[in-house]
């Protein structure tokens, strides 16, 4: 059990709306060790909401769970002040598009160093040195110069590597990557993923990869959760994805084009209302 970083049982996220609650996430349960877990699903299926709920970043939402244990901490019981020491220090998140997720008017290096300065007592020069060595670790050449650039002066791929550097600088135990490559060019995507993979494996970080790209998750992760309408409908090993039982997963797989495959029409996903019925999957 000591290897379990995260233990989630019946996580629900709901928003107060007109005439009751809107349930964005229902009864999501899973555990995570030092591994790479993928969460896939279509837009609005609640996958990003799960990621943000783990960090308690949803100020207007109501988050409940039977259990939400992160290492020795009961995340939902923490006060906001204690949560500040978890966020960015032990649990962090890589956001989707560096064009928006970096502050446009501050130097990128400063923003990386800030992650360190927030949690460790040290001089600015030390933080700068830390940030620069981390920029090196994400394979940015000429780090000293990049440090002083502004976000609009770096490319998307470099921006995302800066984001990774920022989020891994404090050596967290869990990183949530929320669509980390969907804003990037295909050519840069692989490179960024490789860097992420290497750092995560080297440091023994638990990674939750949120994505809508089934192929990416299949190749990159160890296990996959498939979400639909706020619930996990299926949990599989990435290597056994073809053994999927749930019709939704099967439908998704059937809609994937394959290199060398026939040129006929791909099948179209036929959503069924019964998929929204409560279902419980333990992963």
């Amino acid at each position, binding site marked *: 059990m000591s290897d379990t970083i995260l233990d989630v049982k019946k996580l629900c996220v709901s928003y107060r709306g007109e005439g009751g609650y809107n349930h964005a996430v229902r009864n999501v349960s899973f555990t995570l060790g030092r591994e790479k877990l993928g969460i896939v699903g279509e837009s609005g299926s609640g996958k990003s909401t799960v990621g943000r709920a783990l960090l308690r970043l949803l100020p207007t939402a109501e988050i409940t769970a039977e259990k939400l244990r992160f290492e020795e901490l009961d995340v939902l019981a923490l006060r906001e002040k204690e949560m500040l020491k978890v966020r*960015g220090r032990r649990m962090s998140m890589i956001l989707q598009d560096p064009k928006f997720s970096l*502050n446009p*008017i501050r130097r990128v290096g400063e*923003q990386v160093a800030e*992650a360190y300065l*927030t949690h460790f007592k040290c001089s600015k020069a030390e933080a700068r040195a830390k940030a620069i060595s981390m920029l090196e670790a994400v394979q940015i050449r000429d780090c000293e110069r990049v440090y002083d650039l502004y976000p*609009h002066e770096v490319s998307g791929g470099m921006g995302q590597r800066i984001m990774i550097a920022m989020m891994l600088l404090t050596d967290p135990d869990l990183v949530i990557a929320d669509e980390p490559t969907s804003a990037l*060019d295909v050519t*840069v995507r692989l490179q960024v993923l490789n860097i992420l993979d290497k750092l995560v494996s080297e440091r023994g970080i638990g990674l939750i990869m949120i994505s809508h790209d089934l192929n990416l998750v299949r190749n990159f992760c160890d296990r996959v959760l498939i979400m639909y309408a706020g619930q996990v409908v299926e949990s599989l090993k990435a290597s056994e994805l073809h053994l999927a039982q749930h019709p939704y997963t099967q439908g998704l797989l059937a809609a994937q084009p394959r290199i060398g495959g026939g040129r006929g029409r791909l099948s179209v996903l036929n959503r069924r209302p019964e998929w929204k019925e409560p279902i419980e999957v333990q992963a």
Partner: protein
Amino acid sequence: MRRSKIARWGLLPAAGEVPAPRRKLNLRPIGAQLFTVAVTLFGLLVLTFVIGRMMPADPVRAIVGEDATRETYEMVFRQLGLDRPIWEQFFIYLRDVLTGNFGVSIRTGQPVIQDILHVLPATIELATFAILIGATLGVTLGVVAAVNKDRWPDHLVRVFSLMGHSMPIFWTGMIGLLLFYAYFGWVGGSGRMESFYIGLVDDVTGFLLIDSIIAGDWDVFWSALNHLILPASILGYSSSAYITRMTRSFMLDQINQEYITTARVKGLSSRQTIWRHAFLNIRVQLVTIVALAYGSLLEGAVLIETVFAWPGFGQYLTSNLLIGDMNAVMTCVLIVGVIFIALNLISDMLYRIFDPRTR
């Protein structure tokens, strides 16, 4: 240049492809700006000239009076150069303005510029204090309201700023005088200082606070400050209403941005997130609206100047408009125009400092 553009658009693979940094200050926009300023100034001069010629007031009659003979009238007409072609008159006007000759005020018989140098510092003093109060109040309240959107601090701030917006300023001024001067006696009444101090301090800059410091007369300084604080607060409150509302909406825009989430993920508290990240991004927009508010305060607040018997620019302009002293009016319009051009220039320069993307 070309290379860096390509890299920025993400067209080149990013590995080690560092765009050439453009740290060198780009001088071209500044040159372009100076050119724009020159053109605007010229336009402004044309405008004031046209105003002077188009106004129904007869400048000759204003000088010679109703009972003058035809000969006197025509002599003055020629003296003023009104018999020359209009373009020649314009060039004469241009030459006069460029050499600092703005004509003589009919009312006082003194050069207009001399009169204005008396009233303008009074208004600048008032407007500067007012904008300091207004911007501090407005920005703080706007941020508080945005952070607490739809909760009680937000509602409170909105009511408070709506009041500032909708109460007529002469009324607020009178109530303020009644309360803080007549009843509590905390502040000075009307005028720029107690009447027995008038004339004690030499007129060096025209700014009473500065002049009294130069003279080392602290009694006058405190009296001046005491008289300044109430009208400045009232003007500041009234201009803070707009600043509050704009700050709130700018801030709400920023709070929903992704980089705010990044800052939160890093473990920054909400206060740190607001001031270190969101606020830095609204500075440019704030500069614009604060500069505009300052501009309209410098134009002179006739109503508050009247209520507080403040010998300022607004009163001067209004009274000269009413009696048709065109030299004074034209010069005032020119000054207001120059103030706005200058404020625009300053805020453009601040943009460059505050936003690296515009460099």
